[in-house]
């Protein structure tokens, strides 16, 4: 084995060790308990295998003479056209590593990892055995964790009763994991099949090819899942023990998400129409099928879908980066709260008494308050819009962020008006024919189901309006403005009006969402409207696929739904979510379900500008300038001196 490969293997081992150390430090072994060690070894094996797969791609790249440019240093996860080349890469893997090389590679990497893990766990064990508590420094390094890491009982750690064999065993286990990875990669058969299957699957998901049987199976998935969820919900049916609620939620999320893919898989025309109607029926039946927990989560998901759709108008369509979108959400929520809560704010109560209205009964019901909340939010949108008309890019981002914070701070500090941090309590619920939904539907629809249903209806409405507007001349003007503001203006787009419309419409939708949120929460507090809501809304449209309503639904399912499923691992919830967010961005930067327009865009606008015209690319400085302007999301404008 050449020296280069050996150092590569050691490096791989070190990286695996770094990753495993992280897991150990955050207390994963203790959490897994007894079988922690094999689990860690398996994780290492998986990592080695992935690494082997990637390393084996290198020679083929060199062979074809393609120097890997530092700029497109992207992992080979692309789907679509590039996926086709993967098959050949895999074949290369078999050729280059046909012998014992990968096994030795895996062995070396595994030995490195195992040795380090053994040393570190030995140090921990020795320290604890001698009565030194590491925990005050490293919170999760408790005896339980270290014990699980070595595969003994905590008592043995405390008494320094850990035989040396244990550490040898640790090293051997990881070495074995490395060999396993090497075998899998070299043996090829298994690895190739699995990889090819994954490749095929991703190709299918992107809608390139699919046999009709597979297609129908895929299309049936959401309905099968829905049926299963409904069956699970029947009285007397139990499965998954105490996790049933969580499992059902997960299935609900998958069913809803796969429905969106189903729509993409179906053939345009009558088939699609039928599928759409069926899916619509399926989705609208959910509030009646799910239990309170799933309904409440799905309600929140669709409230965020509304937010996402509104923010998408501002960010996705008009290209105005807004980090303070929560402001309008808050305005909608507080407007409704003022109107509907038996409220003790001195100012408002005083005003009401002055007007001869009892402050104890709500002023307006949900439906009457809806236009008020929307209008207030829209006015807020315009008020924010006017001062920021001239700002571009990141300047806009920070000002909107500031605006969001200002609104929150006012809600927090204007105690006489908003009740300050104690919030507004007992906000009334939306009525159905003047009664509670539980009564009208004879218990079929729970209060949370009703909220979910309302969120669904409102989201559908918002999606409809947003899509229609985007397909009209206003949508074209937004898009033109996003592409090149100066040229758009010189082509006849009234920038002020167009921008303000984007802000106002986006804000209106957020106001609707805020009102529903207030109704869902019943009590609202300024802390519900922190910067993180804006970040969540932005993240979900980007994760889902900016500009694409289906993507936004998917993004909301992933970002607001999945964390609820991950409740079981409570303290690891946010770390997992954050890591997924980063990985997601690297693996699919265009989002899970990107919009058609978005997909056309090549990754770097600068390159895209030149791609169409290779022969002229160096000569014409203007072209570059043009590309650069696009790259910065703004045109080139000299400020009037």
């Amino acid at each position, binding site marked *: 084995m050449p020296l280069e490969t050996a150092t590569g293997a050691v490096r791989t081992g070190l990286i695996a060790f770094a990753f495993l150390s*992280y897991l150990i*430090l*955050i*207390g994963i072994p203790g959490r897994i308990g007894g079988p922690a060690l094999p689990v860690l070894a398996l994780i290492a094996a998986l990592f080695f295998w992935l690494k082997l797969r990637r390393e084996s791609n290198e020679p083929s790249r060199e062979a074809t003479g393609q120097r890997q440019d*530092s*700029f497109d*240093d*992207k992992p080979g996860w692309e789907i679509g056209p590039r996926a086709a080349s993967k098959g050949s890469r895999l074949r290369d893997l078999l050729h280059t590593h046909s012998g014992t090389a990968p096994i030795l590679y895996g062995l070396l990497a595994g030995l490195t990892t195992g040795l380090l893990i053994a040393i570190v766990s030995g140090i921990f064990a020795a320290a604890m055995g001698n009565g030194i508590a590491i925990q005050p*420094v*490293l*919170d999760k390094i408790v005896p339980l964790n270290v014990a699980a890491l070595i595969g003994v009982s905590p008592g043995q750690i405390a008494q320094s009763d850990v035989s040396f064999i244990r550490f040898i065993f640790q090293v051997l286990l990881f070495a074995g994991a490395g060999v396993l990875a090497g075998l899998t990669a070299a043996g090829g058969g298994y690895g190739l099949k699995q990889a090819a299957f994954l490749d095929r699957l991703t190709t299918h998901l992107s809608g390139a090819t699919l046999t009709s049987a597979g297609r129908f199976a895929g299309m049936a998935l959401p309905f099968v899942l829905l049926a299963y969820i409904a069956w699970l919900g029947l009285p007397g049916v139990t499965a998954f023990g105490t996790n049933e609620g969580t499992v059902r939620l997960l299935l609900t999320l998958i069913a809803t998400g796969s429905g969106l893919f189903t729509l993409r898989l179906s053939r345009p025309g009558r088939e699609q129409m039928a599928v759409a109607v069926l899916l619509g029926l399926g989705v609208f039946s959910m509030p009646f099928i799910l239990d309170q927990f799933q309904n409440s989560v799905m309600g929140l998901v669709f409230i965020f879908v509304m937010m996402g759709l509104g923010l998408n108008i501002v960010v996705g369509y008009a290209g105005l*980066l807004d980090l303070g979108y929560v402001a309008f959400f808050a305005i909608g929520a507080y407007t409704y709260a003022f109107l509907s809560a038996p409220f003790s704010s001195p100012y408002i109560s005083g005003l009401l008494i002055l007007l001869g209205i009892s402050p104890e009964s709500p002023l307006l019901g949900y439906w009457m308050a809806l236009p008020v909340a929307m209008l207030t939010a829209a006015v807020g949108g315009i008020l924010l819009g006017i*001062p*920021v008309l*001239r*700002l*571009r*890019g*990141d*300047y806009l981002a*920070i*000002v909107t*962020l*500031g*605006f969001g*914070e*200002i609104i929150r*701070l*006012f809600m927090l*500090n204007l105690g006489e008006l908003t009740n300050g941090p104690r919030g507004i309590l007992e906000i009334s619920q939306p009525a159905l024919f003047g009664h509670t939904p539980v009564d009208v539907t004879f218990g079929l629809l729970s209060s949370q189901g009703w909220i979910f249903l309302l969120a669904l209806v409102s989201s559908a409405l918002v999606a409809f309006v947003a899509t229609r507007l985007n397909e009209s001349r206003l949508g074209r003007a937004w898009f033109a403005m996003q592409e090149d503001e100066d040229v758009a203006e010189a082509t006849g787009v009234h920038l002020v009006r167009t921008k303000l419309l984007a802000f106002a419409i986006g804000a209106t939708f957020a106001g609707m969402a805020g009102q529903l949120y207030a109704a869902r929460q019943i009590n609202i507090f300024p802390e519900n409207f922190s*910067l993180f809501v804006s*970040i969540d809304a*932005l*993240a979900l449209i*980007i994760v889902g696929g*900016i500009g694409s309503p289906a993507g936004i639904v998917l993004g909301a399912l992933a970002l607001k739904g999945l964390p609820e499923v991950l409740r079981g691992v409570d*303290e690891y919830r*946010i*770390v997992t*979510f*954050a*890591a*997924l*967010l*980063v990985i*997601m*961005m*690297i693996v699919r*930067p*265009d989002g899970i379900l990107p919009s058609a327009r978005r997909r056309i*865009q090549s990754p*770097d*606008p*600068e390159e895209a500008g030149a791609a169409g015209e290779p022969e002229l690319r160096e000569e014409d400085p203007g072209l570059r300038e043009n590309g650069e302007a696009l*790259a*910065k*999301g703004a045109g*080139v404008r*000299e*400020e009037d001196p």
Partner: protein
Amino acid sequence: MTSSPVKAQAAGTDGRAALKQFTRALGVAIVLLVIWRVTTVGLAEGYPVSFWISQALNGLVLGGVYALVALGYTLVYGILFMINFAHGEVMMIGGITGFFALQFAQARGWMEGPWPVVVVALLLIMFVGMAASVVIGVTLERLAYRPLRQAPRLVPLISAIGASLFLQYSVLLIFGVSPHSYRKPALISGGLRLGDVFIPYTGAIIFVTSILLMLALFFIIQRTKLGRAMRAVAEDRSTASLMGVDVNAVIVVTFMLGSALAGAAGVMLGFHNTVVKFNSGFIPGLKAFTAAVLGGIGNIPGAMFGALILGLIEAIGPSALGIPTEYKDVIAFTLLVLILIFRPTGLFGEVLSEKKA
């Protein structure tokens, strides 16, 4: 042709001129209002001069910290045009590491030694904090940002937000939820008392060190080969690479510089305010970002002055305007909005803005 071009013309010209007039009048009105308010409050409260000096010093120290962090934002922005949202967390890592280094030094008894030992130990602690920040900053660049260099600009932002949360909660999981309290050595506890003005030693150190570090940075960027390469990459990445500049290396160095400054800020803030925990980088990070934008993002002197102005406003604003201090962030953000309305590219941002904003 539209139905009534004449009317449109009249409305257009008048409207535009009126808007400009209105903005200008608004600006003057706001300035006058603020002056009036400050004067009346000042007269009514009758704070002594020493009070204003104290507040200004508080503001300058705060501004010094913001400046060190803001430079990291601005450096990265100048070169990659991305907001490194996790930069505040890089600072926090510096602070946390500095805490453990201090623990170590205390256990060795270095903190009770003669003053040269203490000074060397303090410098070492700061260096360790900076090194940890550099490691995290560079890792961040390698894992979370480099793969996204060609992606639309929102994508690295989201990745950065993910990284920010990841770092925060990893620190929470690894080092626990409790805040870590720095124990200042006797050498730098207390402060200088000049009449009614009190200058904490740590505050003075922060201010002086941040100025020195910024000067060093300025020197690196203006006078060294490395600085030239950085400026070239900032100007045009692909041309720079054609000219033989190793773009990746320059970007890594940029992250190293920014992270080192943030790490230094983290350690010094630890000594000054004595408490660090997993989320203690977030708010200063946000403020520093605001400061960077205030000064004109991508512009190094801009970040420095923006940060000092922001610090001063936060410290003096509530007293001067006679409103409760919980509105200090409102004042800071309102100032930002106002400045950007009248100077859409920040205080010092025009040079870059023409090309990149």
